[in-house]
């Protein structure tokens, strides 16, 4: 889709990117926790999960974010968006720790959450879709997409959001942010949170202090399933370029939102369906392609075809460069140009 826009000449020199291989995601939430431990432990950040993993089909985080608007229409006009509440994000549940551990009632009172407990960040985990024996689900990790055409940046009346020239990371300048939250309305992926304690908007920063030192973001480096490729979209030697540009198997989530995300997904292929006699039925896929098209747009058809073709090659005893790339036998190959071991760095504490 051709776009005419005023920021055309302001595009970054390079663009960081991630590819998530949904065929490998275990839903273990190690990425989620790696991010939480590193970035969102301060007051006001209790309910924040800059990296999330949700079961699909499902309502996502925040709940029903796909129905909240934002982004741009096909004419590149901003669409009005809903401001997600703490409750819709799943909030930070409070527990009766004081009562149980310090109130002398430990033998009478059991630990329990307080207040509204009708929703959480991955509340519909493992509900999935379909009917036994052809039920299905997969996991969908999400971070800020560090978009090429960021709706948040476009919305902020304070010019508090910038897209870094050197690598395209989208950052909120907390010195300029006045907590107006138009960015949260405008982001169609609803990956921006409001910090009630500091009265500023906050979101995934693509671990820019690590990227500055050629270290991959924590969520990617900590992933035990080798799901998350991290690097530069414009690096032809890196796996992201190969998966997105050469093989065209990695595609963005909801491209119709018009923000040109820089996080890409390898769509999932589930085991085959079973017919009523329990025999393998390959006449249609277990995960309905229409559902994947809802998530990833029409490009998912081409991606699934290529994946299937390459998979069939290896099943037939042949070789597939694509399958080798996705298997990632050498872990550090997943982080081309971001493959430095953080243990080799001298970190200086900020005083």
């Amino acid at each position, binding site marked *: 889709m051709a776009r005419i826009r005023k920021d055309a000449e302001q595009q970054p020199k390079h663009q960081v990117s991630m590819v998530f291989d949904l065929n490998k995601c275990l839903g273990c939430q190690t990425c989620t926790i790696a991010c939480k431990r590193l970035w969102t432990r301060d007051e006001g950040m209790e309910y924040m999960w800059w990296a999330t993993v949700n079961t699909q089909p499902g309502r996502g985080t925040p709940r029903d974010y796909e129905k909240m608007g934002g982004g741009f229409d096909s004419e590149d006009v901003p669409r009005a968006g809903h*401001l997600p*509440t703490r409750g819709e994000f799943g909030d930070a549940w409070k527990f009766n720790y004081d009562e149980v551990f310090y109130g002398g009632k430990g033998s009478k009172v059991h630990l329990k959450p307080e207040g509204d407990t009708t929703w959480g960040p991955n509340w519909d985990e493992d509900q999935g879709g379909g009917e036994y024996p052809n039920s299905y689900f997969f996991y969908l990790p999400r971070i800020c997409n560090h978009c090429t055409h960021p709706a948040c940046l*476009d919305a902020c*009346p304070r010019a508090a959001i910038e897209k870094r020239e050197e690598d395209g990371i989208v950052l909120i300048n907390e010195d300029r942010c006045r907590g107006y939250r*138009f960015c949260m*309305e*405008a982001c169609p992926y609803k990956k921006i949170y409001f910090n009630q304690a500091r009265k500023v908007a906050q979101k995934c920063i693509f671990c820019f202090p690590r990227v500055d030192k050629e270290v991959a973001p924590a969520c990617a480096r900590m992933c035990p399933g080798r799901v998350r490729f991290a690097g530069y979209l414009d690096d032809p030697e890196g796996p992201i370029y190969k998966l997105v540009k050469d093989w065209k198997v990695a595609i963005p989530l909801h491209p119709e939102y018009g923000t040109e995300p820089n996080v890409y997904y390898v769509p999932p292929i589930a085991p085959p369906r079973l017919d009523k006699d329990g025999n393998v039925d390959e006449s249609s896929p277990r995960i309905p392609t229409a559902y994947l098209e809802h998530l990833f747009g029409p490009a998912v058809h081409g991606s699934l075809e290529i994946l299937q073709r390459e998979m069939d090659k290896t099943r037939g005893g042949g070789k597939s460069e694509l399958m080798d790339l996705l298997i990632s036998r050498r872990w550090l190959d997943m982080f081309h140009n971001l493959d430095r071991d953080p243990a080799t760095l001298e970190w200086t504490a900020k005083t």
Partner: protein
Amino acid sequence: MLVVAKLSADHGALMDPAASVWQPIKSTALALEATPTGTQPTPYTRTSWKDRKIGAVPGVGVQAAHDGESIFVRLEWVDANENRSVEDNNVFPDGAAIVFPVKETAPIDTMGSETEPVNAWQWQANSERGRSVVAHGVGSTEPSTEAVDVAAVRSGDHWQVIISRKLAGADGSVSLNPGGASRFGVAVWEGGNGERAGFKGYTAKWTDIRLADA
């Protein structure tokens, strides 16, 4: 023309919106209207808010006094929906501001211009500290360093708010003098209506003021 009365009452009384010192001072009623969406600074705010009703507070009563050193502006308006917090993402605090031209010819409806700045003093219901900003046009506000004192009380369904600053300004902000004249405007944000930033009720024209002499 609004006359800023010269009073010798102590600073504490003038900072109390409910103090008797304010009773004899004439209140001027100013009408507020919605800020135009067409002049908002970003594509999102211009287009996505165009069908939303903003400027929920239709008018404000203004009283003003000075003590030779500081000016005290007392604002009072009806707002049945008290919003003091940002406890959830979709909750916004009530607020008010008074604005002065730093350069006399500055336009009010665009918050000044590149060469004609305005200086606004703001109160927000979730903060005990006021703030001073200088703007050179819509979306360009920058903090300035002068201390702005604020005090607010609820009286029934009314907000009563004092915004005060030293008469002498610095750092690109407005300076006022006993015996001198200036112009000012008022803005009110109804937090319960999601009003913040450039979405507010405001006086679309300047009101002349004169400071009574010492």
